[in-house]
């Protein structure tokens, strides 16, 4: 790696990280696993003057049970998410999606917080936490604040975090009994980003869909919910025809990109096909 020059700090507490960030203006970047930022540095697409390495902040690592929700530290790695018993038991969608990120080396270094704060619409976890209705916790000079997942992603590679804020973790409501899930990731090779990803959660009751939540990866500058499908599928019979019909609305309101791996119309088509598949799987069909 031959990046441009930068200063480097490795704070020993979140408060110290916040104060280093506050003293560094707009040109500081937080680095954790480095799996998104390092490539940008290497290609000189990012020129931060200061890197604040939060890798030593063990208080940001791990998963705890808060009764109705799980609290997951920002430094929890993708690999840990795939293995954690609490995550697997109460929000298995997150464990499943984390297991599809890149390759084992990336999953061992990359972190949940880094993936969310990078806000790449092609990243897998943003759409997943949007579907899970998670809440993100940030700490800044003014203290701690909670941000709903739907409001966290502001634009392409942009979040609603203030420059002085550190993402410390997320809070995910536990899924109760009856919920199923599926993350359908469509990509050209095992290590590649999703061309489209569909994060589906659904609860089944008496052969019908009681409720469903669908998050879409890479269908616009930010992860979105397939609201039209969610509405259409609620109360529908659990049969392939009905689910396909509801999924036909999946791309409504999206604005997918056109790039080397897929033009926008193809992505819209994929979103519809994959949503049907994800819902079908989530409902145990």
């Amino acid at each position, binding site marked *: 790696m*031959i990046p441009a020059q930068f200063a480097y700090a490795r704070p020993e507490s979140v408060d110290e990280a916040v104060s280093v960030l506050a003293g560094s203006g707009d040109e500081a970047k937080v680095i954790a696993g480095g*799996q998104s930022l390092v*490539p940008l540095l290497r290609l000189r697409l990012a020129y931060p003057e200061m890197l604040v390495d939060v890798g030593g902040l063990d208080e940001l690592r791990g998963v705890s049970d808060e009764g109705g929700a799980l609290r997951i530290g920002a430094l929890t790695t993708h690999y840990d998410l795939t293995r954690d018993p609490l995550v697997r038991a109460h929000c298995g969608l997150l464990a499943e999606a984390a297991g599809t990120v890149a*390759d084992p080396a990336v999953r061992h270094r990359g972190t949940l917080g880094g993936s969310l704060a990078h806000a790449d619409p092609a990243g897998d976890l943003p759409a997943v936490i949007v579907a899970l209705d998670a809440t993100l916790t940030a700490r800044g000079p003014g203290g701690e604040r909670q941000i709903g997942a739907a409001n966290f992603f502001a634009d392409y590679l942009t979040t609603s975090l203030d420059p002085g804020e550190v993402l410390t973790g997320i809070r995910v409501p536990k899924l109760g009994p009856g919920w199923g899930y599926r993350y359908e990731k469509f990509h050209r*090779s*095992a290590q590649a*980003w999703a061309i489209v990803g569909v994060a589906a959660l659904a609860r089944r009751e008496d052969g019908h869909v009681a409720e469903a939540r669908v998050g879409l990866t890479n269908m616009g500058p930010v992860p979105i919910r397939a609201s039209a499908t969610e509405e259409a599928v609620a109360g529908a019979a659990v049969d392939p025809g009905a689910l396909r019909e509801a999924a036909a609305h999946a791309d409504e309101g999206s604005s*997918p990109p056109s790039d080397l791996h897929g033009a926008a119309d*193809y992505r819209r088509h994929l979103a519809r096909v994959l949503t049907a598949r994800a819902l079908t799987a989530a409902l145990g069909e």
Partner: protein
Amino acid sequence: MTAETETAAGGQAAPAGTGTISEIGRRRVRKEDTRLLTGQTNWTDNIRLPGMLHVAFLRSPYAHARISSVDVTAARGTVGVIAAFSGADFAAEQGSLPCAWPVTEDIVMPDHPPMAVDEVRYAGEIVACVVARDRYAAADALEAIDVDYGPLPPVLDMTAALEENSPKVHAAGNKSFEWAFSGGDLDAAFRDAPVVIERTFRQQRLIPSAMEPRAVVCAALGDEYTMWSSTQIPHVLRVMLALVTGIPEHQLRVIAPDVGGGFGSKLQVTAEEVLTLLLARRLGKPVKWAESRSEGNMAVHHGRDQLQRIKLAADRDGRLRGLSVDLLADMGAYLMLVTPGVPLLGAFMFNGIYKMDAYSFRCTGVFTTKVPTDAYRGAGRPEATFAIERIMDELANELGMDPLAVRERNWIRHEEFPFTTIAGLTYDSGNYEAATAKAREIFRYDELRKEQAERRAANSPVQLGLGTSTYTEMCGLAPSRILGQLAYGAGGWEHASVRMLPTGKVEVVTGSSAHGQGHETAWSQIVADRLGVPFEDVRVLHGDTQVSPKGMDTYGSRSLTVGGVAVAGACDKVIEKAKVIAAAMLEAAPDDLEWSPGRWSVRGDPDQGKTIAEISLATFAAHNLPDGIEPSLDSDATYDPDNFSFPHGTHLCAAEVDTETGQVMIRSYVAVDDVGTVVNPLIVDGQVHGGIAQGIGQALYEEAVYDSDGNLVTTTMADYLLPSAADLPVFQTGRTETPATSNPLGVKGVGEAGTIASTPAVVNAVIDALRPLGVRDVPMPCSPERVWRAIQLARLGRAPDSGDAPSAAPATPPASQAHDAEVNPAHDGEGGAR
């Protein structure tokens, strides 16, 4: 990963106690791997010399532009910077990068300055450089260089480039050469032919992706220059550096340390090598350059990039009558070491393993404002094999025949060898029936056809396709006489020395230059058998022109069939020399001695004998040698092959195609290859596995894409997709062994076979799956989107050739389709990084 069946008799070592050592055919673990896999070696970028400086190159952001001015003043003033230069600073001494293969007398061969002086002709061409104390300072200072460009129109499409009013890449025009040959009466073959099939296939542009990117270190010591380079061709490079720079050849030493792969990309004399040498001379300090993957993608020579118009005439019973091929081959902006020769290496291969009455071939080399193309694994032969194997499937479909049956109808039968083809090559040996029968059995061809029929009947969203490729190729480059006839600038021989050390150990010096192939192991096996010494007692030296002074290096699956044969020849000379000295030691007449591996003994009195180790020690002491006998067993051999090597085989691929998404999944893949006598089955498997993976890469994943301004878009592994083990099926490999009759070891080349064979097998499988939907072709790479669009078009009654695909951008959606958003630039991250 391998499910393997072998017919090879040589799969096992000879039973102990027979008195013979049989190393050839043994599944030896490679002796070089400990060092390579644990990093106990120096790759070029690990080399650090006292006072070493680092060079970084500034590359053109324009595909085509005139250079008005280059100002390096500010860069020179940057901290840590020692020097900065523009092309004008080198104009008097840099010469022109060489092309050793002027295929025609009237070929247009433009000047190719290592650093552009007046004009740049592809994005990525070097325009300036900075030399600094470390590579960070060098990279930083590049940003301070001010270049004033006057943009010129890019030339991106080969067909358009040949039109009268096209912008010109070079003043002499966009056509470099036209080369043609034919055999038989083509008009007669096509006249009244009951079946004529015409197709256009596109060989997309590929980027070789060796695991180790390129790197060079050059140091001037006294009046000698030493260059370490991650190259396949230290010997050729030395000669060419002398010719380009005027530095006398005997004052140049080139070292290829351990090299992490090449696939043809390091069969080159690069601008970076020449400039690093000139900088070391100018500054009197060692200079290093090492590329990043992104820099490499836009600067290493590319591969393939042909537009193939192919026409086949046949009888109703499937018999081939004639074949005509008209190629456009993209040279890129300049001719590099063997650029124009690559399509010629395919010219003799479009007829494949088939008999026919007539064949004609024509190729036009076209200049574009893109990175130059040159050799990439298979070089010309994958392109040819793809075209013939794809169109054979089209013929089978047209006639309602099984694809294997139409092939069998036409292939050369085993009893017909040696067979001179319509292209004029004499195939020495082969058994296409045996390889195909075996592949069919392992693949369970008939069962899969049954399942395919069921899925078709059920209108399953996931269809099954079976793809066939019965390939051969010409390799083992090459008989010098034929290279001369093809206007190549060098010969095709190889050199070897065998040195007997006093303790009976053996040093083998080879002119082959290993960069991952396992020469040290294979050569040790050959020598162990030949001389009757333990495998462990052999050491193989290579890759340094001071250690191995003569060689033609490694490419074109030539090492074993040429270099390995030279090693065996040198061993034979050692044995003959040892005979004379053994006779003196045994006080017997040389003619009364007989050789058993490792030992000369008196015929009829086997107890009276001397081992090669004893003879070596006696030769070293030299106390009692016969008069006139020099005290040395060491021997050289230089071998020039009489013929090419023709490995062959049958590859079968079963692919599942998701017709809703376009996703292709390879379900099973069977390769039965006949590479003649197998020296090391493990190495052969490795070559076949890697080759298949690379061919699958072309079929499904890889493509160098340029935008309409001529910028390379696929500069990282996020955009230039390579398959990894996670994307590939278990390869089922099998072998038949029909020894080559053209060399004493019976060996055939294997380095490129897998790549050559696999691409058409995979694409044929994809098309076979989709035929009921009306799809007759999908342009490579068969990405999910391309497959999906082919299905959509077929539903509308349109079935385009892959030749219809635009070369400047993949998978363009219909014009009426509005794009919702712009291209997503953040994914310019390198492979696997999130």
